[in-house]
């Protein structure tokens, strides 16, 4: 019994169908608890007032936006090395979700930045690298959409994902170099004394878990859809031949 067994679409479908209700339920519960707790039962920040509460959407979305790309990188590698179709389809399914998270992070950041920094947008390294990440997501999805043959599309997008990851990382450090930051440093890290106060940190943790599960749910659903679409196409092709 190894994880590679789920490269079999049938086994993947069976497992994901069983897992989906749990994933949906947990997502709803965690997001509801986290967001309600965060929005209504935490005090206002002494300096930022109630605008601080956007952190419960902004931070989890931003974290997931990066993690989704890393997941796509891993599944692309799996496709290149072992050629499991489910892996390639999972990467394809994840991209629009990742793009949405990126846009949420940018949008909530702008909404918070307007009252706090006095501007919707600043060419800060973090903001800029997120904008560049958005471009990478767009390019990746456009390439999937442009190629008809599914295997060719999977191959080329995987190569693009690998090369793009290197350049996304390069851009991340290049923009650091180019402008000094306005964005505050990380508010959550395991190895530091100075973190966000516990009052904010616990609901934030719940929200992050909720967003992660939301992503798992969406990817499972979308991968299932892709597999079904692929089966439908095969069926139609067979009927045309017969």
């Amino acid at each position, binding site marked *: 019994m190894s994880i590679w067994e789920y490269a079999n679409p049938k086994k993947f479908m069976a497992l994901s169908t069983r897992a989906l209700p749990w994933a949906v339920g947990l997502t709803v519960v965690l997001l509801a608890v986290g967001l309600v707790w965060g929005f209504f039962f935490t005090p206002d920040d002494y300096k930022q007032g109630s605008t601080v509460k956007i952190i419960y959407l902004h931070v989890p979305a931003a974290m997931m936006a990066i993690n989704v790309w890393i997941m796509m990188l891993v599944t692309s590698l799996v496709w290149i090395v072992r050629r499991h179709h489910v892996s390639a389809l999972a990467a394809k399914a994840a991209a629009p979700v990742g793009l949405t998270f990126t846009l949420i992070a940018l949008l909530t950041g702008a909404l918070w930045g307007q009252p706090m920094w006095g501007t919707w947008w600043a060419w800060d390294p973090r903001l800029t690298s997120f904008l560049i990440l958005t*471009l990478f997501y767009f390019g990746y999805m456009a*390439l999937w959409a442009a190629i008809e043959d599914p295997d*060719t599309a999977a191959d080329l997008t995987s*190569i693009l994902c*690998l090369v793009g990851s290197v*350049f996304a990382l390069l851009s991340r450090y290049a923009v650091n170099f*180019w402008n000094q930051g306005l964005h505050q440093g990380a508010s959550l890290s395991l190895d530091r004394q100075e973190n966000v106060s516990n009052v904010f940190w616990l609901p934030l943790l719940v929200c992050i878990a909720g967003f992660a599960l939301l992503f798992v749910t969406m990817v499972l659903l979308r991968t299932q859809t892709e597999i079904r679409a692929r089966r439908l196409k095969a069926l139609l092709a067979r009927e045309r031949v017969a």
Partner: protein
Amino acid sequence: MKALLLRDLRLAFRSGGGFGLGLAFFFLLSVLVPLGVGPEGGTLGRIAPGILWIGALLACLLSLDRIFALDHEDGSLDLLATAPIPLEAVVAVKALAHWLVTGLPLTLIAPGLAVFLNLPAAGYPWLILSLLLGTPALSAIGAFGAAITVGLRRGGLLLSLLVLPLYVPTLIFGGEVVRRGAEGMALGTPLALLAAISLGAAALLPFAAASAIRVNLR
């Protein structure tokens, strides 16, 4: 390999080969920017490094789809793929040819255009050096993008969508070198990083591009 390089260069210089188109575009851009921004020298001098680098980048982009598309159409790419030299070498040679007909001439005429843009005198040597070090990266990255889109009809638009984000680090370091040079600041770090990107791209991307071509020829 030498024969391939000479063949590509000859094809590029022949009429209809597209040589000079990128240069003309670069020239026009440098003339149009002052018309749009206004003739005030201080402003122009400040944005000159960025404009020149963006102009070089777009001029490069203009001719990218010719790297493989024409060879793909007439079938010579299939022959090159089955030739005794490895496909990686073919890609590297074609990227080199692209650089020789776009990157190098761009570098040579850039100082002339910098006059239009009122670049401060201290910036000129750094403009040439940064373009010399940076444009090979543009060609290598572009060859990779061209390799990915070679099998597509209407690949040109997609090509720019794929390649422009990959150009970001090169553009940042290139523009930074010239800007710092013009202001007389220390510029060793961005210059070294720019050279690193070019060397890294030239060394690694032919492998990615060759595997993309193999997929497209399948």
